């Protein structure tokens, strides 16, 4: 019996791995610029321990000026060495940890519901639901640091509960896991402390009883976090936060002032029309955006990097299952069930401070809670319809069809429809330019599609030490980094008028700006056929 469950679990993890690794170099069709940055920085670290611009990354990698937390690059050093600096190598850590998250979810169930008689069934169903989750599959198939953070956060919670349930020394591992997540993805900087403190409060008696281990874990946590605390109060971090947060909209205040005037400046009016309340409302609005059922169950994230947009972040069928699941975890009060709703409620907070909501990536922290709730609902359904087996079977069939619907769209249509989201045009244009590079003195390449330099670095597997010497780098007022040139390459928003002789220069520009006297050499298009770049000479 035990064996049969193990075999089942093995096959689920195998399926998860297949769904995450199969054709990972073609779907999505190309590395987007953030993935490319991870790849090249990992490559660079692998060579001399420094990032592309020569810094030893501890709290961040400067990259495009977005100050990426560095863990993904470190994780990617070995895969890039082993598999090469290519799509597979760059995406490998995300896909691997995504697969392991499925396995971890099974074990997590055992710790959340330690005495639940059906914990193994629940674990298997949860792992299966996560294995086929469109949300998790999409985020595991590209180099998203969020996906690594999710793995670390789940580990942190799993290890914490394991320490509570069985062996106290897991607490030390738990704090390392939480601390690492903070070096992995921005939202973890808010979620990890919130969740960690909440868990500590809930299990305070246990922690006080084992005060030695708690103390060691706490000190270790603080030591690991010290460098990043220094970074978080720096102006760079502030710029980054102001860019995305919701608390900088001033029109709200104008309206409030007018409303006070309309009330003849009464004191009550000043109380009800104050900006703190309005900003809180705005926060709540962005918060609840992430719980919008149309986002979760039918439309998905409107950013096609995170979703095929064919269906929601979850299957429509998950909706009734999640509702039933929520209802029954509260009714059954099994084990530490309350951790799931707390996890969800805290997990959405970081995303709610940003302007673009709902946001599948920033709330990936709540994976796998919804899948567990859905599985709990499914388990209730099976139990309730013990004598009418056909009902769970019908549910299973609908689920299977929904999965096929998602997977069909992903495999056969996604890449073609959204290749521009993955900077696909660089794939062919960079390869072409590299193949003819020796025939020209200069290459003037448009910045129109954004950050082309990184794709040349990756294609050439350029030695970072050489790049640092050749590159001309500027920083704009928003703190974004702009690589203007290196080697023969010149990158500009106006590539037709470079600061050097146009003779013997290869131009690659937006098709709208090809001059009349140009001799067009080659056109490069997205997978849907739209021409995005044109190579010409004069």
């Amino acid at each position, binding site marked *: 019996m035990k064996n049969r469950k193990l075999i089942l679990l093995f096959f689920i993890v195998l399926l998860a791995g297949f769904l995450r690794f199969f054709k990972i170099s073609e779907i999505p069709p190309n590395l987007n610029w953030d993935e490319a940055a991870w790849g090249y920085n990992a490559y660079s670290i692998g060579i001399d321990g420094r990032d592309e611009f020569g810094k030893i990354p501890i709290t961040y990698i400067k990259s495009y000026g977005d100050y990426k937390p560095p863990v993904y690059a470190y994780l990617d050093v070995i895969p890039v060495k082993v598999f090469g600096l290519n799509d597979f190598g760059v995406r490998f850590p995300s896909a691997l940890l995504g697969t392991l998250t499925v396995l971890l979810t099974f074990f997590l169930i055992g710790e959340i519901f330690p005495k639940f008689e059906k914990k193994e069934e629940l674990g298997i169903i949860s792992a299966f639901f996560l294995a086929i989750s469109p949300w998790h599959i999409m985020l595991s198939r590209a180099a998203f640091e969020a996906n690594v953070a999710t793995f670390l956060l789940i580990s942190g919670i799993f290890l914490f509960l394991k320490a509570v349930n069985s062996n106290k020394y897991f607490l030390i591992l738990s704090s390392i896991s939480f601390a690492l997540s903070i070096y992995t993805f921005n939202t973890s900087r808010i979620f990890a402390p919130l969740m960690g403190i909440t868990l500590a409060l809930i299990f305070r008696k246990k922690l006080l009883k084992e005060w030695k281990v708690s103390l060691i874990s706490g000190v270790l946590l603080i030591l690991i976090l010290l460098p990043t605390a220094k970074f978080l109060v720096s102006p760079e971090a502030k710029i980054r936060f102001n860019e995305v947060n919701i608390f900088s909209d001033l029109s709200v205040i104008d309206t409030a002032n007018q409303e006070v005037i309309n009330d003849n400046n009464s004191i009550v009016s000043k109380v009800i029309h104050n900006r703190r309340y309005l900003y809180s*409302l*705005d926060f709540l*609005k962005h918060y*609840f955006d992430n719980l919008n059922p*149309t986002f979760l*169950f039918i439309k998905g994230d409107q950013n096609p990097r995170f979703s095929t947009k064919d269906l929601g972040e979850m299957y429509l069928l998950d909706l009734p299952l999640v509702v039933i699941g929520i209802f029954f975890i509260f009714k059954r009060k099994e084990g530490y069930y309350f951790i799931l709703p707390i996890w969800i409620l805290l997990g959405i907070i970081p995303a709610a401070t940003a302007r673009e909501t709902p946001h599948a990536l920033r709330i990936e922290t709540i994976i796998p809670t919804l899948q567990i709730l859905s599985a709990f609902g499914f388990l209730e359904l099976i139990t309730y319809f013990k004598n009418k087996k056909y009902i769970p079977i019908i549910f299973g069939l609908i689920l299977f069809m929904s999965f096929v*619907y998602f997977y069909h769209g992903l495999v*056969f249509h996604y890449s073609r*429809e959204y290749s521009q989201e993955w900077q696909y045009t660089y794939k062919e244009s960079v390869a072409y330019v590299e193949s003819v590079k020796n025939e020209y003195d200069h290459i003037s390449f448009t910045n129109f599609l954004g950050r082309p330099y990184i794709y040349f670095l990756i294609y050439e597997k350029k030695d970072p030490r050489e790049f640092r010497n050749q590159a001309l780098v500027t920083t704009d007022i928003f703190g974004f980094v702009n690589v203007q040139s290196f080697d023969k390459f010149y990158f500009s928003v106006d590539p037709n008028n470079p600061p050097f002789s146009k003779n013997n220069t290869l131009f690659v520009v937006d098709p709208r700006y090809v001059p009349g006297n140009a001799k067009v050499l080659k056109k490069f298009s997205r997978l*849907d056929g739209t021409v995005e770049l044109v190579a010409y000479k004069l």
Partner: protein
Amino acid sequence: MKRSYIILFLIVIVGSFLRLWQLGHIPIAPNWDEASLGYNAYSLLLTHKDEYGRLFPIALQSFDDYKPALYAYLSIPFIKLFGLNIFAVRLASAIFGIIAVFATYFMTDEIFSNKKLALLTSFLISISPWHITFSRVAYEANIGLTLNILSILFLFKSFKKGKYLPLSIIFASIALYSYQAERLFIPLIFLSVLIIFRENFRKINRKYIGLSIILGLLISAPFLISVARDPSTLSRAKEASILSAPQPLVNLDLAKRNLVDSENHDVFGKLFDNRRVIYAKDVVNHYLSHFDINWLFIEGDSTNPLNLPLRKQTIGMGNLYLVELPFFILGLFLMFSSRFDTKNKKFILLWLILVPIPAAITWDTPSSIRTLAFLPILQAITAIGILGFFDRIKGNYKFLILTPIALFAIFNFIYFIDQYFVQYNFFAPKYWQYGYDQIVPESETLKSNYEKVVVSNQVPLDQSYIFFLFNLKYSPQDYQLVGNNLGTYGVDHHFDKYSFVFRNWGVENLQNKTLYVLNAQEWGSVDKRKVNLIKEVNYPNGDLLAVFFDKK
């Protein structure tokens, strides 16, 4: 027993005050639907015909939206009493709103057999922003809602005393004439009741069931016949349906997908990549949009008039008070986990699930107006949550928890009252076709000097003809003789010296002996050297609304 009636009385007083106070002034002006309902009622009162000359219509063609006519008929006595003015037109809705507050008490008590719960639900309805804003405007939907409550009330009563069944059916069948969404909701909810409570129906005396069927058929016969003869009765449904949406939600290039699928000999592609799947997803999307917490508690939507001026901002009001949110969630949980009658639980759940269906097949969602039937069930669930919460909060720390909640509740209420009764008329005039109370008398004074008066028929003066008819109390007999039968959208209207036209005034030649009344934008395109400016009409905040001028 006595005490609960006294409390109910007080609740109804509060509810009446919130619905009747300043009814003719807030909202600031009649919108075009109100003007149309008012003038058609006036026309029915004097001639038994609508503006297009149709005798006793069951749907008003109005702006080609074929409004169910019940509201116009209900307004007739008030227009006879108070004259053709905005107060009289809104009064039917306000009174039905007050009846709803009252009937909610009895309905909730009938379903849950709990007086405390019934009182609290009725109170929540009496102060509900959703219900108040709809009760203060001539909305057919609000009549439909009250009829829902009455028919459900008597339906549950009939399980104890069969004689109430015919009464329930009468209200339900009348509701078919009140509002489009009711035409789907009423059959659906009655079908569910029939299935869930089939045992109870068996116990009802056959003669009452027979009588109910006969009454139901009789009352709905004109509606059924009219639909059979002329499907344009359902035109509004067709026009608003997602099949005619400006652009479907899922904007996929299906043709391209189909091409790829057929190249791949892809069987699944044939199954998945087709129009039907996309429409099905679209319907589900519109349906689910009504279970968005933001919509319910924070943002609302622009079909709730309160949100019109605020639609582009995140501030404003949801359809329910924010403080109700935690109690609503608790109430949902308590209701389904407690020992209420299973059949009643099923009924409440089905009610919640059925309400958004009529809205789901339209494209403009979420829609407060098409889902008004959520009331008062959302309030009943919230009330269950509040009572359950009070039961659980005991001990010395009680006040520490209750005080902030009470303060926030008061905050919510004052905020709403301020938004609606103070701020609304400052921010909203542009959305309420404001200004005809100045434009029409001015035109009347000036028109004796001219042979023709040309009035704009473009935003914000679109459908201006109905506002002139309404404000002039123009004789319906006369109008029916000259009014066109073509409908209204993109059509010019003429009566008396007036013409209401849609023109490009940048190229149009201005006529002599003609008074022009144009909106600010049209005025902008007129060549100022060739005209005499006579008068300007402004919004309360000073923005230009309309200009009177003639040719030099």
